[in-house]
Each structure stands twice: as structure tokens, then as C-alpha cells.
């Protein structure tokens, strides 16, 4: 567009603006007042107000930086088959219990389930050599064993989230004899699924990974050891840089004017900012074997010398994806039925984005109850 064309366009555009000096002054005065009120609200908040993941729980196992928690049941006789929730390494488990009224864990507890979850903790430099197999056949398997022993159940229910869903899929394929039912939420299964349905603003990680060579990934891991949490966090924020800037500026104005919104915002910020370092060898496998070579869906992924064959997943499968997910494009999650050995495969779409699945108002009404119904129907 040349400058003359742009000038003509601007002249037409200007007629859509009905902002006057008086309306501008009034709006900005209102915004200033909202910010002032918000600043006062901030001053009054305490650590307790901002606490996240406060569901009552007890630590039942630990190794290295990993912890297994059992949430305190809220019914006298919880459902006999426990659920183990496995979150990703790129964020903290607190997302499943961000706030009391936005908590997947509490919803499952309220439905009478016995709920466990893994906190992967904060890997240090010493953990840079951990591989996906160390997580799957090591920590995750130990957690399952602890729960099997405590519950007396031969098989337990697994619920994997995002990267934790991939770990869960690998586990269910390698140790099917210990898994009663498996549910995935916002989980990338076909890492090249986005190629068929490219979408602006979605699938950055897929595109970045494929724009690099295998040697680039090796260089990255060798140069960094573990990927610093701040770098991982920045990568996520870079997916929507302008709207993130708007979030910390002009969008703050309305947030500041509503106490409930402000608390939601601050608690979410706590979660967003809390990024653990990512063990380097997991990064290497994650990007080379999965994002670049798509080995999971091709049954070519090898962990600890064993092939991960999704056809071994013969137990019931529930696959939940978010219709507005831009981190894990829908096309990377849905339509995976044919890849599993299960004859009982269910797919469920929930509204919202990747994280909105767990904290969004509409998704909250669907996710917890759907999971509870599905597990209950298959755990009798």
C-alpha cells in the first residue's frame, strides 16, 4: 500500500471514530479512578489472598524433586478406583486447583473420587540428564505402584494433561496391565497434525521446532543443559506478544475495577510466572522425537529400549481437546481413535483455550462432570 492509498484509507477509517475531546477526557478520568481503586485493592491483599492450589492434601511419596500427593477425600467412602493426575513439566500442577471455585481436583473430589496428583517439582542442574523414560518408567511408575498398594486396586485411572498426557500415553502403552482407564486433556498426540490445518496464531511450537534442524536442537540442549524456566515462559508469552502487552496495560483497567477479576488475574499470574527449568534431555527428545519426527503417533518412540506402541492402549480412552487451543492445535489432539488399540474411545471438545480448559467458566461446567461420568461408568 503506498502512502496515497493509505491516506485515502485513513480518511475513510477516521469516519468510524466518534471519539471527542470530551469523551476522551471522561473515559481517561474514569480509567484513572479505576486504576487508583485497583492500586488500593492491591495494597490490601495478603499472601493468603493470592494462595493457589490450596486443596487439602498429604504427601504420600517423594523421590528427588518429585512428590506424589493424595487429596483429602470429601466423601466417607470414595470411589475405589483412584485417579492419578499427571501435569506437564513446562508449568506447575497448580493449574488443576488454581482457585477453590476453579478447580478440576475439587470437582472430582466432590464427585466422590479418590484423587492423587504428581508435582514434578523444580528440576535442578543435576537433573539435566533426565529423559522421558526416567519420568515415565521411573517416577510415574513409582507413583502408580504407590497408589496401587494404597488402594488395593490392580489397575488405576490415569488423567494426563498436555505434556503430562504424552507421558501418560507412553505409560499406558508400556504398562497397560496397571491402567484401568486413561484420559487425555489438551494432549498433543499427532505432532504434525497442524500441517493439514494450519491456523494463524496457533501451533507456534510446532512451527518453531520444524524450522530448526535436529542439530540445532542438539546445540540448544548442549548449550543450555536444562532449558531455563524463564526461557520456557517467554516462549509461551511470545506466542501472543501484543495481546500480552495489552493484558498488562489497557486490559488491567477493567480488571482493577472488579475485585473478583483482580484476584483471578493475580492468581493466574502467579501460575504463569512459576516456570520450572526443563531437563535438557527431555527437551531433546520432546523436540526431536516428537515435534520434529512425530514418533509417538507412528509408534516409533523408544523409551528405555522399549518401543512405545499406542496399540497397546487397549483400555478405555477419553480424549479431551479445547476448541480454541492455540498452544496444542486441535488438529494435533483430535481424531486419534485409530491409533489406539482400544475399542472404547471417546472424544470430547470443550470450549476455550489451552488453559481455559481448566479455569474457564464454560469449560469448568463440562470438564469435571464429563471426566467424572466417564470414569465412573468404566470403573464399576
Amino acid at each position, binding site marked *: 500500500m503506498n*502512502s*496515497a492509498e493509505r*491516506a485515502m*484509507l485513513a480518511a*475513510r*477509517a477516521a469516519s*468510524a*471514530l*466518534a*471519539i471527542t*475531546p470530551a469523551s476522551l*477526557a471522561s*473515559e*481517561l478520568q474514569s480509567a*484513572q479512578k479505576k*486504576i487508583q481503586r485497583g*492500586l488500593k485493592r*492491591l*495494597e490490601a*491483599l495478603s499472601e493468603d489472598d*493470592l494462595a493457589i492450589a490450596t486443596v487439602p492434601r498429604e504427601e504420600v511419596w517423594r523421590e528427588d*524433586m518429585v512428590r506424589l500427593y493424595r487429596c483429602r477425600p470429601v466423601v466417607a467412602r470414595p470411589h475405589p478406583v483412584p485417579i492419578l493426575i499427571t501435569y506437564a513439566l513446562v508449568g506447575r500442577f497448580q493449574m488443576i486447583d488454581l482457585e477453590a471455585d476453579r478447580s478440576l481436583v475439587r470437582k472430582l473430589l466432590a464427585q466422590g473420587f479418590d484423587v492423587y496428583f504428581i508435582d514434578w*517439582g*523444580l528440576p535442578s542442574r543435576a537433573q*539435566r*540428564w533426565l529423559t522421558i523414560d*526416567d519420568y515415565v518408567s521411573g517416577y510415574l511408575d513409582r507413583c502408580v505402584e504407590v497408589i496401587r498398594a494404597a488402594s*488395593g*486396586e490392580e489397575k488405576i485411572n490415569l488423567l494426563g494433561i498436555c505434556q503430562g498426557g504424552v507421558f501418560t500415553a507412553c505409560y499406558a502403552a*508400556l*504398562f497397560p*496391565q496397571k491402567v484401568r482407564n486413561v484420559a487425555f486433556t489438551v494432549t498433543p498426540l499427532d505432532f504434525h497434525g497442524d500441517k493439514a490445518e494450519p491456523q*494463524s496464531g496457533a501451533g*507456534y511450537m510446532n512451527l*518453531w521446532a520444524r*524450522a530448526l534442524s535436529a542439530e*540445532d536442537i542438539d*546445540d*540448544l540442549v548442549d548449550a*543450555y*543443559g536444562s532449558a531455563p524456566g*524463564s*526461557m520456557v*515462559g*517467554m516462549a509461551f*508469552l511470545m506466542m501472543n506478544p*501484543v*495481546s500480552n*502487552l*495489552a493484558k*498488562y*496495560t*489497557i486490559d*488491567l483497567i477493567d480488571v482493577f475495577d472488579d475485585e473478583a477479576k483482580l484476584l483471578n488475574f493475580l492468581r493466574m*499470574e*502467579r501460575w504463569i*510466572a512459576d516456570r520450572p527449568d526443563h531437563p535438557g534431555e527431555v527437551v531433546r527428545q520432546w523436540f526431536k522425537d516428537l515435534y520434529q519426527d512425530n514418533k509417538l503417533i507412528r509408534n516409533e518412540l523408544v523409551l528405555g529400549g522399549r518401543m512405545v506402541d499406542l496399540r*497397546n492402549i*487397549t*483400555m478405555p480412552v477419553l480424549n479431551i481437546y479445547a476448541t480454541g487451543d492455540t498452544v496444542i492445535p486441535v488438529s494435533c489432539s483430535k481424531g486419534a481413535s485409530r491409533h489406539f488399540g482400544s475399542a472404547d474411545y471417546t472424544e470430547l471438545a470443550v470450549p476455550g483455550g489451552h488453559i481455559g480448559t481448566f479455569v474457564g467458566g464454560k469449560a469448568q461446567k463440562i470438564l469435571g462432570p464429563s471426566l467424572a461420568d466417564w470414569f465412573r461408568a468404566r470403573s464399576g
Partner: protein
Amino acid sequence: MSAPSDPHSGADSIYATWLGLIPQFFGQLGATMPAGAGAGAAAMPGLAFPLDQVARAATMTQAALQDMATVYAPMLQAAGASGLLGQWAAAMPAAVGMGSGGAASPSSASTAAPLAFQALQQAWIDFGSQLAGSLTRFDSTAFDRTFGALSDAFGLGPLRQFQAAYKDLLAVGIAQADARTKYAMLVQGAFAAGFDRLLARLADMAGKGERIVSWLALLRLWAVCTEEAVHDVLQSEQGLAATAALSRAGIARRRKLQHIAGIVADALDMATRRDLDDAFREIQELKRQLRARQQPAPAQVPAARPTANRRRKGGPKR
């Protein structure tokens, strides 16, 4: 209980990036906040994370809005909405070049606008570099001070190995600057395209008889249009290639710095990064062997039974 995360490690650096970008964000729109204004000073020191950081962002927003009101009110009075769009166009890079056509003369703030864009560009470069894993200028200075002083103190400077490594570092630094420039050019193009997109969106609204009466709504629409343009550019083949090049350049520089640090550490008989990695790798391998001894071999694990959902009496034997 697990140890809580340290919110002052990665979180602070992420917030520092956002806070540093806020003046440039508003500078795009003609506000004359100095770069870095408010980013460093604590608004609510001692409060729980992220209260202070959010308070700083809000305070900076407040100042920017005040500044914009001062600039825009007389402009709207004199030239109406055309004046407003002219102000924004003046804040865009020269490629947009709308200032001379149809729009009112930009106010005094417009002279600061190109500078604001340059600052935004630099901020984006640092931002992208962090993503790509390179060191920022601050990190590089810290490195030079630490290891430069060490090498001087121990007489390592003249060593052929050290000199060669330093020469390599300079070479990759040049390559990194080139990669940064190419990336910044793309970002600049994306912001210009975002402004064009805003104009088109507004013109479309005007054609339908729709009106925007809120200044903040206009800002939000600008953000949406710019974000769309940024996505299109950064997800294009060219954008991905530029991001990958930036990443490679950052990694190359980091490895050269590590090489120099290794030379110094070796010379002083200190443990190097490789020594530590070797030790950690060995520990991890021993843990794997221990785990393998504690678990039944895969071949001994019973095969999966497709419909086996029976509960085992008495639970698993341990």
C-alpha cells in the same frame, strides 16, 4: 511438602521484560514516557508476588494515559479523528508514511515517536534474543567483567587459546547482530502491517455505519490488528527462518562464551561445566541401574488383557 518456587528467579525476569516494553507499547501510540520509566522502581515493595509488579504496570499505564490525554485532546479538538490517526501514523516506522497524507500535523509528541519505535525495536530484539537463548547486553557485560578480570588477574590474556576463543566470540557476535537486525526488520514490518490492518478494519466499520466511541476500545482494536499481523509475519517462512537464525546465533554465542569460561576454569584447575555434567550424567545412570534392579524386567510383565478390569483381591503384593 515440596519447596515452593522462587518467584524471584524466572518470574521477575519475565515481568521485567514486560515492564520494559510498556513505555514502548504506549510510545507507539504517541505517549512520551521515557523508555524504562517505572520499570525499575518498586511501587509496593515487600508485598506478595506479583503485587508490586502489577502495581508498577498499572502505574505506568496510568502515566501513559495521562500523557496521551494531554496530547490527544487538543489534537481531537483541532483536527478530529483524522488528527488522531495522523498521530499514530507518525509513530509508525517510515514505511507506513501516512503522516503527509490527509492527516493533521502531528503534535509535539510525534517527534518522539520514531525514537519510541526504535526503542521498541531494541526491546523486541532483546525479547527475541531471550527467547532464542542468547545473552542480553547486560549478561554479556557481566561476563566480560567476571572473566575478563579473571583472565587479566591470572595472566591468561596473552594465551593463544584464549585469544583465539575471544576472536571467535567476536565473529559470532557479528553474526548475531546480523540475525537480530533481520528479525527486527520483520517485526517492524509486522507493526506497520498491523496499522494498515487497523485502518482497513475501521474503514470497513465506517462502511457499515459502525462507530467506535471509546478510546480504550480503539486501543484494543489496534492491539488485535497488530497481533494478527505479527502472527502472519512470524509464522511465515521468512519469519520462521529469521527466528531460527536468531536462535542459532544466540546459541553459537553462548557456546563461545562457555568455551572461554572453560579455558579459564581449566587454567585455574576449577571444575568446568563439562566436569559437572559428566558427574551428573554418571549419577543419573547409576539411578537408572538401581531402578532397573528394583523393577521386574519388561519381559516379565504380564501382557495386557483388553477387557481385564477385574479388581484384584487384597491388592498388589509389595
